[in-house]
């Protein structure tokens, strides 16, 4: 018998009803994601990739179809997943260690255990010495790391990253991509990574899921056979990367320009 995938998306439709008109955001999406996979989602804006991930997080429910996560259908907020958004959703009134430890506090783990875990994960993302700092005292990249540590610490099977590096400059983006890959290799979490940046998607992912413009459908899924460990700084200059980029962009381009006509 075939092993069950961690996440199974089955014939999802999502309608948004507004006063003016009804919008079909996702049309018949089906997808399997295995444990430990790094999957990137690309597509024109408004194609419903974030909607799909919000449904996997259980923040909204599909109009029809189902999503199975760890063998259970998602019917409410998914508490076994990590959720990182583009805008820092770390709490500005908490210090780094309070931010990182908030989930443990919510889950009422014992105090001494909590302290050790917080220390371990702050170290993992390289923020030693900043434990008592407030987010307003940190750089953009450091804030991202706080968000990552805060998510990793409660050990979710999968982590949703919705354009996490979208607002950062190109160099910092590369540095953080590199660190994300290293952390992924260490922790073997399943990563669901939404991005606008096709290069980022290819550098990081095992598979790239390409969406069509609205209504969002999965156009195709491309495996990225670039060997690991990857060097995100060098990978862009390899022929394999170039070919993959060309191939996926050819198809993505149609969707993006279609979107602009609307």
């Amino acid at each position, binding site marked *: 018998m075939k092993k069950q995938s961690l996440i199974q998306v089955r014939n999802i439709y999502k309608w948004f009803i507004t006063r003016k008109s009804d919008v079909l955001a996702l049309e018949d999406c089906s997808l399997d994601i295995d444990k430990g996979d790094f999957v990137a989602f690309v597509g024109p804006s408004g194609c419903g990739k974030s909607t799909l991930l919000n449904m996997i997080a259980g*923040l909204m429910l599909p109009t029809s179809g189902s999503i199975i996560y760890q063998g259970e259908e998602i019917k409410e907020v*998914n508490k076994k997943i990590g959720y990182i958004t583009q805008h820092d*959703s770390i*709490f500005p009134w908490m210090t780094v260690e309070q931010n990182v430890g*908030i*989930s443990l506090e*919510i889950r009422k783990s014992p105090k001494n255990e909590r302290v050790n875990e917080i220390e371990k994960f702050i170290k993992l993302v390289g923020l030693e010495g900043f434990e008592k700092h407030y987010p*307003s005292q940190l750089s953009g990249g450091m804030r991202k790391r706080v968000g990552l540590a805060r998510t990793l610490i409660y050990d979710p099977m999968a982590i949703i990253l919705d354009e996490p590096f979208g607002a950062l400059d190109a160099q910092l983006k590369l540095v953080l991509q590199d660190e994300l890959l290293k952390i992924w290799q260490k922790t073997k979490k399943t990563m669901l990574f939404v991005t606008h940046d096709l290069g980022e998607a290819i550098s990081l992912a095992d598979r790239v899921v390409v969406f069509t413009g609205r209504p969002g459908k999965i156009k195709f899924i491309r495996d990225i056979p670039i060997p690991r460990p990857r060097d995100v700084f060098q990978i862009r200059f390899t022929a394999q990367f170039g070919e993959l980029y060309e191939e996926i962009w050819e198809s993505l381009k149609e969707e993006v320009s279609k979107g602009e006509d609307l």
Partner: protein
Amino acid sequence: MKSGKSSFIDPLDASIPREEFKQRLYKQQLYIWSLRIFWGIGCMLFWEMASTYLVDPFWISRPSHLILRLKEWYLTGFIFPHLWITLLEMGAGFFVGLVLAIAAGLFLGTRKALSDLLDPFMMAIWSVPGIVFGPLFILYFGIGFTSKMVLVTVTVFFLIFFSTFTGVQQVNRDWINVMRIMGASQRKIWIKVILPASAIWVFASFKNAIPYTMVAAVVGELIASQKGIGYLINDASSVMDTTGVFAALFNLMLIGLILNTVIEYAEKKVLHWKREEK
């Protein structure tokens, strides 16, 4: 800042060595304070001169009389019952208004249907300054302490309520979603996210509301009272005692100054995470 040998330094200027920076900052503070004192004395002198040579002191009194009157009020203890009652009206009214406003703001801010329903009513009430209820409250609660306290409460309530109400509605959805995914209960989300996130808004309205506590209490006293700073103003002006009016005003200024200092301090304490910029 102007370039060249301007004596003012930018607090963020990192090009100056730390020791020198501290010294210069200290000097700068000293300079500013001595200028302030000179300015204050200068104004007083001008006033004194004006009342000697330009205008009859009957209209504008004079600083020397003012100081004597204040001395008399404070030494005989005459002022204290009045000061006390006004402060009590302000304090009690503010406290009750604050608690009710935060509670109502948080409650309605998280209930979209109910707040939509009540929206036109809230707007209607909001467009009326709270003070206009003064005569009504005096009718309801008499000319004593209660009517002024209620007037302060109502004034403060609307100022803080609307701010809290908007603040709660603008709490970042991502924050709440992250907490839900981490498995936080509704109660935890309130304590850990909604309350601290709304604190900025509440404090902003705090600062706005403070001067209005004084406005409401004093206007209430002006309408009808037997005690308080507002009463002193009324009483003094009814016997054409401008010195008395100014002495009463001076007490109000003092109250305002102290309150603002306290609020700024409290804001720094509560919103410390916001202030500690790099």
